[in-house]
């Protein structure tokens, strides 16, 4: 899922976890000390680029303070950073109810659902975030990506154009706009925006995917293969990337590589399905998938 790569980008773009986590509110002394210690430890682990260890620390903090807004928020962000959307969703879902007016939680919830592959639920969460905090660039980009994933390219484009109006050099928005334009059949604009994003970040997953799709339609298959290979290298969980790369190989007569990509695509697809199933099994909102 391309959203996996996007989630990381967002977290990096957002204020660092270490700075965003507030100090725990006053609580009974022994327990507060322990939760605080674990949050401090997680902060330190995160700054030393040991996110999995930080997540483990936060999981321990959750056991001590399962309803703490600070702990849940920190845990969810760290889970997203290690591409674990399902635990993030399970932390964010109660958070969006506990603090229903905090746009950031709905935004993170939407990003987590997008990472998991539940695009419709992601869209709903992001719409709430947009209502609570209008015209936030990251929310507009995430909405654009979600709508692209649902093939609602015209709606995606309008959000992304708004995002770029606010932040013209945003690479995520530029690349996602390229994808929307490609979906709308606006190949020249898609190509221009993809190239613009890639000039800033040559390995960008969505930028390369959009460029690869354009090259496929232009029947420039070798260039499509190269762009799509960069796309799946940046985001190995992208089912669309692997599928399109399989087609590029097939057009180039490389049946073995095409078959290999089909298998990777199918694995990515099953992983998304499994995540969505897991979310639904845990009581999170359902998507529009047919049983």
């Amino acid at each position, binding site marked *: 899922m391309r959203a996996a790569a996007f989630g990381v980008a967002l977290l990096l773009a957002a204020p660092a976890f270490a700075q965003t986590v507030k100090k725990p509110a006053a609580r009974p002394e022994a327990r507060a000390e322990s939760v605080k210690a674990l949050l401090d430890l997680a902060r330190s682990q995160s700054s030393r680029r040991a996110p999995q260890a930080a997540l483990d620390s936060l999981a321990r903090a959750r056991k001590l303070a399962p309803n703490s807004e600070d702990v849940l928020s920190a845990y969810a962000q760290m889970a997203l950073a290690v591409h674990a959307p399902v635990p993030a969703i399970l932390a964010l879902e109660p958070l969006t109810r506990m603090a229903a007016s905090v746009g950031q939680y709905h935004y993170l919830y939407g990003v987590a659902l997008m990472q998991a592959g539940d695009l*419709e639920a992601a869209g709903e969460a992001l719409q709430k975030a947009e209502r609570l905090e209008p015209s936030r660039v990251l929310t507009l980009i995430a909405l654009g990506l979600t709508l692209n*994933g*649902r*093939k*609602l*390219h*015209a709606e995606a484009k309008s959000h992304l154009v708004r995002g770029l109006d606010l932040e013209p050099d945003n690479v995520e928005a530029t690349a996602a706009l390229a994808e929307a334009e490609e*979906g*709308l*059949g606006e190949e020249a604009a898609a190509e221009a925006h993809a190239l613009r994003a890639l000039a800033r970040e040559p390995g960008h997953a969505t930028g390369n995917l959009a460029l690869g*799709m354009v090259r*496929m*339609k232009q029947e420039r298959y070798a260039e499509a293969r190269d762009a799509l290979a960069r796309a799946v290298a940046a985001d190995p969980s992208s*089912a*669309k990337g*692997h*599928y*399109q790369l*399989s*087609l590029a190989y*097939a*057009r180039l007569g490389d*049946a073995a590589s*095409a078959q290999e990509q*089909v298998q990777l*695509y199918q694995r*990515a*697809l099953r992983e998304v399905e499994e995540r969505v*199933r897991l979310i*639904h*099994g845990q009581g999170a909102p*359902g998507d*529009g998938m*047919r*049983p």
Partner: protein
Amino acid sequence: MNRAARLGPLALLLATPAVLAQVAGGVAGKQLFRDVREEAGITFQHHSAPEKKYIVESMAGGVALFDYDGDGRSDIYFVDSLTVESAKDPQAARSALYRNLGGGRFVDVTDKAGIGHPGWGMGVCAADVDGDGAGDLYVTALGGNHFYRNNRNGTFTDLTERAGLAGGGWSTGCGFADYDRDGHLDLFVARYVKLDLDNLPEFGKGKTCEHRGVAVQCGPRGLPGTSDLLFHNDGDGHFTEVGEKAGVSDPRAYFGLGVAWFDYNQDGWPDLYVANDSTPSFLYVNQKDGTFKEVAFPMGVAVSEDGAEQGGMGLAVGDYDNSGRISVFKTNFAEEYNSLFHNDGDHFTDVSFRSKTAAVSMPFVGWGAAFFDYDNDGFLDIIAVNGHVYPQMDQARLGASAGYRQRKLLYRNLGDGTFEEVAARFGPVLMEPRVSRGLAVGDLDDDGRLDVVVNDLDGRPQVLRNELPDAGHWLLVKLEGKGRNTDAIGAVVKVRAGALRQMRVVQSGTSYLSQDDMRRHFGLGAEQQADSVEVLWPDGTTTKLENVKANQLLKIKQR
């Protein structure tokens, strides 16, 4: 050449708003189709359980247009279905054959024909299987299919057992083709889900039995799929099932529905496309040795362009851009978009969004579909009928999906590789929300304008007479093949008229579980004649006629 180019500079001079509206496909309220079912005397009613608690109660409703009595007019056969409650009483459902009397009138001849009770009917395909010049009928069903041989006296005989064509299980789409080119028509049958009526999955119980927060029927995901069948015609009235040997048995047991035989690579051998529900679709390329190779993934027609496995239902194949290649249109589940796969020669490209057919289809669950030139301008348009599988949708959070009853889609071909969805321009007959399934296209009144017949789930059908006043010139081509394949199934007809180059394929089984009129229709626009009509017969021989006058039924017999 696109429409604007064909009109030339004069068109620009005349391009007042009113003229532009006409050229663009009609002004609001202009009559295209009129539902003449009632005045035609068609009283058929399809049956299903109102709540559709089981998937088998949501999927049926094929319709066939074929000339059973050899009078030259297209007759209509509607398939009816049982319900779980009435499953043990085959008389509870009555499929119906209507004889076309001409003059817009039909008469129910089912009882005399003896084809009213094929059990839990699903779909239908037609062909003159025994080569006696009369159209036989194959009806797919849950629990055993039926092969009805036409006795050429208004009656049919059920030869299912003798022919070895029962199949069993839950059969859906079907189609005849001479895949091994031995002169005898073979039969492919898609099958859907393995279902035990005595042990049905309980409504609303389990994760695969809810949709958007409401309890619904279970499946197809979560239920076991089942294999497909290929019956080889042994030439002596008997068929042998060879699906596994031929490589088309679907060992992964995907959920098979729509079937289309067509020679996508133009090597003279019939290939096969199968629309699977909720799983990748199949494209089988004919290996010319009695076997097939499944190539849907490398060919780009297995899944959506995102790699999403779609709920494939109905199929239409046609040369919509007059490129000389046959492309594929596939209807899918809601929020998936209808797929248009353009045939690029050695592969297909998903042009659904580029062609502007996809976005408008997103809310709908699509079923029957056809490429057809409704305005006779020389470019194939598309019709698709819709309707959800869950009546409970009307109580559900709809999201991007439409409710249970849904309107139709009519895509007008703009001649430049794109389409415009124009159903709303032609009044309520296409916009009325219904729960449609099978669709078949043919010229019921031989006026050169294609009519459409739709079988609705649990309701009355529609007989949509094409009354477009300013349709272009036309040709209707009826082929008669030599040997046993008298329908010339698999033949390709090419028509050249002015700048127009068109081709059509003669097919058995198409759309969603349905059968089109096998006469091939060509819109000629302003051309008063076809410069040439060329037939590529299934055996590889050709027939070519030149300077053929427009507006006639042209019968071509293979020598």
